[in-house]
């Protein structure tokens, strides 16, 4: 593995000390390393995106369910646009709820999962 064309004092000392290298007791070293590791590895991008979309959709459905008018659950956005019955503040609430939940989902994926 090594080429030692000329052995000298340093070669000899290193060789001698290599044979007598002490084993350093762990003494909590491994535990200290483990305590400083990131809690969990980050989720892949596709999983993170999927979770954000999922939570966003939940936000939309929740907001739509609070509307004062009956809206078909499967097409809340279409109903809002075609029937002109949704007030601006309700739409704003929907958007705010969606972004809040999406933000919460993003935080959740980065800190807890």
């Amino acid at each position, binding site marked *: *593995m*090594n*080429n030692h064309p000329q052995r*000298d*004092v*340093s*070669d000899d*000392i*290193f*060789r*001698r*000390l*290599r044979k*007598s*290298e*002490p*084993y*350093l*007791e*762990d003494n909590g*070293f*491994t535990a*200290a*390393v*483990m305590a*400083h*590791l*990131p809690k*969990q*590895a980050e989720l892949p991008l596709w999983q993170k995106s999927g979770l954000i979309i999922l939570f966003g959709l939940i936000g939309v459905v929740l907001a739509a369910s609070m509307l004062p008018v009956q809206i078909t659950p499967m097409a809340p956005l279409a109903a809002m646009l075609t029937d002109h019955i949704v007030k601006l503040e309700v739409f704003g609430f929907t958007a705010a709820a969606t972004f809040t939940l999406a933000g919460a989902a993003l935080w959740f994926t980065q800190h807890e999962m």
Partner: protein
Amino acid sequence: MTSDDRILIARILKQNDQRAYSELVNRYQSRLRYSLRQLTGWDEALADDLAQDTFIKAFKKLASFKGESQFYTWLYRIAYREFASYKRALKPFAPLPESLPDTHHANPMTEVNTHRDLAHALAQLPYEQAASLHLHLHCEFTQQEVADIMGAPLGSVKSHLLRGKNTLRVLLSSWQTNASDKGAKQA
């Protein structure tokens, strides 16, 4: 890379198994901490800090480890970068003393003291020379592996080894003389 290492790394990457990483740390902590003690003049606290940072960075970068070299070699590459960053942040290299600090006169010539004495001697060298000597002569990495670990050309490593040996020979000559004198007195 040993098959054991490979299995542990797969468990960490696929199952996010931190216990597997704990096994890897436990497996290599002694060798890495010893090496860093040798390079830091046997500063135990500093060496452990550098070793800890090395293991944390290795965990974060583990997905980029392709298994082309042994895990141990890859770990040393990270450790060397940590060590080199630390040395570069220090003040410029101080002039060499004429001999080693007089540590071995006060204590009997035990192997433990010899390890410390060598660490003190290495600390007097430019860090590239000290690292080249330690990695090649103690850890038994080939010169090419040392070059890979240090991210330096092979020619530079050969030069570091040659210069390091020459300087170390001067530094250790007083050590040998003192050891001989001590031996003669005891006889």
